[in-house]
Each structure stands twice: as structure tokens, then as C-alpha cells.
């Protein structure tokens, strides 16, 4: 069933809003990426590519960037993109009243402050910083922090955004809370030449209508794609893949840098001793954990650096080897006497399953685990306060290891969410933050990893793939390492 020119995609929850970058979540980022675009974007190889800007140039100390805009880019309302529009957007994002979620990455609270944005000419915008900003491009391309370029008419007098006007291949049509969000193909879209490439490249759309349907229940999602009431579903449980494939449904597994970890509270009395943490690491056979939880789909990875990243190499695999006997010996040395250690986990079926698996494995090394299930909001609250011993946590895909390290390393007193409070690591982090050369960065990232394997401030388990299932008639869908869906370039075969 379903109109041939409509694609129905299941989302597990409503998108947060259509105000990109301001009131956002992962779902709204994905949906809005079809509607709005940034100056630059990540390509499939996780390098940064042109999008609305056709080229850019930085000065030597990375304090000033000039972006040349692509000519003849049309907004959904027919207006043409100009440098003045870009300046208006950055002014809006830098205004605290807008509540741009990543404002701190631009106003100097994290990294150097963006001092001035000005139109050099109709097609050129200049960004000036107070201090060297070698990672500015990366910040611009980071999906959660992109200052998306929207047309000033999108914003009502009171600052609210209800009808977002962007430059993307689809325009926003309607949002029915609890039901769906619908996008319509933008006829005047000025696509880049070439092929599809991450969030960059050729984004010419072919399907006329995209409907993102809210389907909270996983069983209903898979039944929906089986009954052809849905065209695309994600978050597919590894166990159901076989059933879906048997019924002719296409299943795509796309590895991503999204990282599932066992957080270890190094301040907790039971886990303060590094030997105890090492014991826990030794008691877990990562390949077995990945296999048991992912049924062959997950890749074990103890490191911040994802195998998809250009910075990944042999050194990123360093980790205390699996050795349950050694683990109990180490634990004993650390003074562990079998007292239960709590494991915090959110009340989602697959997370709880993982907790059960970890409990079993640690149990066979004599480490006694007490599973504490909370809803996600409570876990996030405890995470925010650092109040846990062990916790199962998933970091959403950060396409550059620097961003990941930045959210791990720091002063626990100031930011309890930090996992790794260590002077040496902080020094290394500072160093890599100021570095632009890829080879040097790779070296520094792996030095950080080697240190992490020794200190065990956190135990990486595996990278989570995005498993997408699609009706047989859908052609041309492809995942990419960022793990988000892209429905430009997707077509539907005539039934």
C-alpha cells in the first residue's frame, strides 16, 4: 500500500520541533537536515565538504575565515541566498534570546569566541575570532551544532519558528503532534553536482512527499513494515532481522561511531582503585559482549576512535586482555570482598538485556553486580550529578574523536558528567584541540587511548550500528557513518 510518491518513515517519537538547532533532538536533526543546510557538511569519509559555501579560506593562525557562497541557491520561498542572510543567521544564533543550543561553542565559553560575522560582499562572509580557532569548520559541520541557514521570514516577530524556510531538498509541510511530520519535495532545489556524499554532495530528491510517522512501539514498527504500512523503520532489534528478511524486507546495517560504554565512576569508593577498574575490564570479553548483545551485528570497540574514523589504527585496539582469573586476583588485591556494585541502566529492553549480560560475565569473575533500572530521565539526572557506580550509557555519534574526548575529559568537580579527571589526559586534549594537521591529530588521539587503556576511567563496549529495514520497493537507500537517514536520492520502484 501507500502512494508511490510518498515515503513513510517510522520514528520512535515526535520530533522536538521545527526550530533547527534551538529546540532539537536526534530525530528533529535528522528530519530538519532534509529542509535546511549549513555552510559546510560532513562527507561520507567524515571529512568536511562544501555545502552552501562553495569554498573557504582561513588565515594562518586560524583567527579569520572567509566563506564564498554558492551562487543562485534558492530558499523555499523563492528568495536567493545572500551573504546578508548568513550574517542575519549568525547574529540570531549568537543572540542569547534565541537559545541556540550550541551557543557556548561560538561565544567563547567553549573554545575561542566568534567575534564578528560580516558580509565582505554579496557572496562572501567573514568570520573573525578572538583566538585561534582551528576546529571552527568541524564545529560548523557537527550535526548537533550546525548554525543552519534559514530565511529571516521563518522567524515570527516574537522569535518563534513555526514555518521554517530553508534551502534543502524538501520543504516543511505540516506537523501533527503524536502522528507525523510531513515534508514536500522542493522543486527549485539547486543541487550540487556529482553524487550523494554524506550530508554534502548531490541532494536532489526524487520522492515527492516524506512522511515521518511516530510509532513508539518496536513490534508495531516491524509489523508495520511487514504490512507495508511503513516504508522505512529503524532501531530494528537484531533478533528480528531474520524474520524481516524472510518476508522479503530489505535490511541495512550501517556501522556508526555511536558508542555504547560502561561508565565507571572513578570517585566511587568501590572503584577508586585503578586495579578494581582493570579487573572489571579484564572480566569482560568485549567480543563476547558484542556478540551476545548484537547477535553478530555489533563491533567490539574499547576506544573513543571509531573504526570508521580516519584516525583509527592498530593502536586504537589497545586494552587489558580478557582474563577472568586475573580479574578476580586483581579485584582481591584492590580489597574487593564481593560487596555488590550497582549498575545503572535505563528501562529499555535492549539496555536491560546488555546489563544482564554484563552482570553474568562480571559475576563469573566474582564481581557482584546489582542492576538498577531507572527511566532515561532519571539516569540522565544521575549522570548529570555523577551519582552512580557503573552505568550503561550510549554516546551519540560524534564524527570527530576530539568532540568525544572533550566530553569525557575534564574536572569532575566542575562538570560531574566528565568521566576522566586526569592531568595528563587534559594536557593531551589541550594539545590536540589546537592541532589542524591530520597526522599529528591521529598520533595524539592514539596516545590518549593508550593512557585510557591504562587508567580505565570508562569501558568502551561496542559501536552501535543503525539497522534500517525497508519495503522491497525502496531503492537507493544507503546509510552513512553519521548514522542518520538521508532520503534524497531514494526512489520507489513502481509496484
Amino acid at each position: 500500500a501507500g502512494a508511490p510518491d510518498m515515503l513513510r518513515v517510522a520514528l520512535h517519537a515526535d520530533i522536538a520541533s521545527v526550530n533547527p538547532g534551538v529546540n532539537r533532538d536526534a530525530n528533529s536533526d535528522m528530519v530538519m537536515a532534509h529542509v535546511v543546510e549549513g555552510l559546510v557538511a560532513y562527507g561520507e569519509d567524515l571529512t568536511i565538504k562544501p555545502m552552501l559555501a562553495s569554498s573557504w579560506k582561513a588565515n594562518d593562525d586560524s583567527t579569520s575565515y572567509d566563506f564564498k557562497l554558492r551562487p543562485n541557491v534558492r530558499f523555499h520561498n523563492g528568495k536567493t541566498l545572500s551573504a546578508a542572510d548568513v550574517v542575519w543567521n549568525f547574529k540570531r544564533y549568537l543572540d542569547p534570546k534565541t537559545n541556540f543550543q550550541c551557543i557556548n561553542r561560538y561565544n567563547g565559553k567553549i573554545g575561542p569566541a566568534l567575534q564578528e560575522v560580516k558580509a565582505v560582499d554579496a557572496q562572501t562572509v567573514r568570520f573573525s575570532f578572538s583566538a585561534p580557532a582551528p576546529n571552527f569548520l568541524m564545529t560548523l559541520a557537527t550535526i548537533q551544532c550546525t548554525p543552519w541557514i534559514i530565511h529571516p521570514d521563518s522567524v515570527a516577530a516574537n522569535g518563534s519558528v513555526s514555518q521554517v524556510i530553508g534551502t534543502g531538498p524538501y520543504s516543511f509541510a505540516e506537523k501533527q503532534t503524536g502522528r507525523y511530520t510531513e515534508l514536500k519535495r522542493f522543486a527549485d532545489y539547486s543541487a550540487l553536482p556529482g553524487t550523494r556524499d554524506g550530508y554534502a554532495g548531490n541532494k536532489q530528491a526524487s520522492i515527492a512527499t516524506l512522511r515521518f510517522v511516530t510509532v513508539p512501539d518496536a513490534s508495531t514498527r516491524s509489523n508495520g513494515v511487514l504490512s507495508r504500512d511503513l516504508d522505512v523503520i529503524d532501531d530494528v532489534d537484531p533478533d528480528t532481522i531474520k524474520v524481516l528478511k524472510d518476508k522479503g524486507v530489505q535490511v541495512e546495517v550501517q556501522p556508526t561511531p555511536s558508542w555504547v560504554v560502561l561508565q565507571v565512576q572513578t570517585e566511587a569508593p568501590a572503584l577508586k582503585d585503578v586495579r578494581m577498574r582493570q579487573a572489571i575490564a579484564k572480566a569482560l570479553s568485549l567480543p563476547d559482549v558484542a556478540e551476545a548483545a548484537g547477535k553478530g551485528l555489533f563491533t567490539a570497540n574499547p576506544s573513543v576512535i571509531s573504526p570508521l574514523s580516519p584516525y583509527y589504527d592498530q593502536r586504537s585496539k589497545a586494552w587489558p586482555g580478557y582474563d577472568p582469573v586475573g580479574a578476580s586476583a586483581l579485584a582481591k588485591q584492590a580489597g574487593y570482598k564481593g560487596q555488590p556494585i550497582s549498575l545503572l541502566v535505563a528501562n529499555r529492553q535492549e539496555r536491560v538485556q546488555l546489563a544482564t549480560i554484563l552482570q553474568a560475565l562480571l559475576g563469573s569473575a566474582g564481581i557482584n553486580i546489582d542492576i538498577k533500572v531507572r527511566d532515561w530521565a532519571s539516569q540522565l539526572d544521575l549522570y548529570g550529578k555523577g551519582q552512580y557506580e557503573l552505568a550503561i550509557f550510549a554516546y551519540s555519534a560524534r564524527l570527530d574523536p576530539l568532540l568525544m574526548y572533550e566530553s569525557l575529559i575534564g574536572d569532575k568537580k566542575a562538570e560531574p558528567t566528565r568521566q576522566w579527571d586526569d592531568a595528563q589526559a587534559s594536557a593531551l586534549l589541550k594539545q590536540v584541540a589546537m592541532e589542524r594537521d591530520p597526522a599529528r591529530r591521529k598520533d595524539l588521539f592514539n596516545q590518549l587511548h593508550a593512557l585510557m587503556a591504562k587508567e580505565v576511567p570508562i569501558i568502551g563496549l561496542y559501536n552501535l550500528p543503525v539497522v534500517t529495514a525497508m519495503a522491497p520497493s525502496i531503492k537507493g537507500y544507503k546509510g552513512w557513518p553519521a548514522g542518520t537517514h538521508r532520503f534524497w536520492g531514494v526512489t520507489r520502484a513502481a509496484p
Partner: protein
Amino acid sequence: MNRRSLSFWLGAGLVSVVVAVALLATFWTPYDPLKLDFKTRLAAPGWQHWMGTDELGRDVLSRLMRGTATSIRISLSTVFLATFFGVLIGALSGYLRGWPDRILMAINDALLAFPGLLMALGLLAVFGASASGIIIALALAYASSVVRVVRGTVLGLRERDFVRASRVMGNSETYTLLRHVLPNCIAPVIVMATSMCGWIILAESSLSFLGLGVAPPAPTWGNMLAGSRSYVSQAAWLAIFPGLAISLALLGINLLGDALRDRLDPRMRRRV
């Protein structure tokens, strides 16, 4: 055998089987219900595992047996708490009347109008997804209906001559309440309590479905059933057995409750 005794014996039989299994499971199950075995994941029922294994290779029969114990424990503790406090508050409210009654009833109505779900979530957040959290949440939710029933009964009993007689004799109000009023609320309370047992097993199951049930790895009928949803087309046994257990237990409890109501109905006993 007439229907009344037929349903009584059928009900009593089913309930005793459930209780027996629960008792047995506290010290013996065929396998360790918590032991994972990745080599026999989702094995169909057979000689090795009579009811098959689940997605982590645990023996379903053993889990079902252990789950019986947990489910029964939750059900009974909830019923006990709800009944205890329900009777206490209902009796006080009905017996004292006036302002205390109005205040208690306003609170009780608020509880009745309050979705149990929010309560469950609040307690889950505070106590964790544990049996005790669920017991407290459900007990709060159900106590309010016990309060209503008991209060109604007590209001009726207050006007009965034997309660008046106790007052004429010069007995204190407390004595009258404890000695004459409360014991005579037992019949409706027992009937309510038996139906509650069933509702609670179901409620725990629905809470598990919303992710608010008893924390794993401890099995309950409810979380086994809720967890089986993802495997319904590949491993139907994961659903069938806990489903069957719930249905039979509920049938037993309801039949027994009906039979008890008939037996405790004063009109049935009044005829000499």
C-alpha cells in the same frame, strides 16, 4: 456437583497449583533461572528445555516457576498493603464522619482520579524498578478503592443495631470500631482482595510493557510476557507459557473469589 462447589473446587485447585509452584520454585527449579547460555538462545520447547529458552538462553520453565514466586509475592504484598491501609482509612472515615471523613474522602478521590501510572513512575524513579516500588505504587492505587468499599460498608454498619447496642452498653468508640465494625467488613474486603490479586498481576505486566516493571534479571510473569513481544513470530513459546500461567491463575482466583463471596454473603448464612 453443583456450580457453586464446582467453581469453588476448580478455583481452589488452580490457586493451590500456583502456590505450590511458587513454593517449590523458592528452593528448586530445573535450571538456574538467571543463568545465561548463548549457545542455546531461543531454543524451541523440547526434552532439554520443556518450555524452550529465551533470547539469552535462559530456561523458560525455570523462569516461569521463579516468576510465579515473584508475581505471587508482589500480588499478595500489594493486596495486603492496599487492604490494610484501605480498611484502616475507610473504617476511620466512615466511622468518624464529619470533617475527618470529608478530608479523607477528598484525598481519596484525588487518589482515585490519579492515574496509577504516574504514581508507578514516581516511585520507580525513587525506589528503582523494583518489586517494592511496584508494590507501593499499586497498593496506593488500589487502596483507594478499598477505602471506598470499606467506608460504604462501615456507614451501613454504623446504623446496624448491634453497633448501637455496643454504644448503649457504654463501650468506647475505639472498642466498638475494633470489636464490632471492622470484623464485619471482612466479607466485602475478602471478595475485593481476591479480585485485586488478579488485577495486580495484570497491572505489573502492563507496567513492564511500559518499561516500569520489576527489574531484570528477576523474572515475573508480567515482564516475561512483556519481553516476549519482540519475539512473537520466531519464538511464540516465550509468550504462550507466561500468558497461560496468568490466565489460569486469574481464572482460579476469580472463581475462588466468587465462591468466597457466596459463602461470606450474610444473606446466605442467615437462614438457619
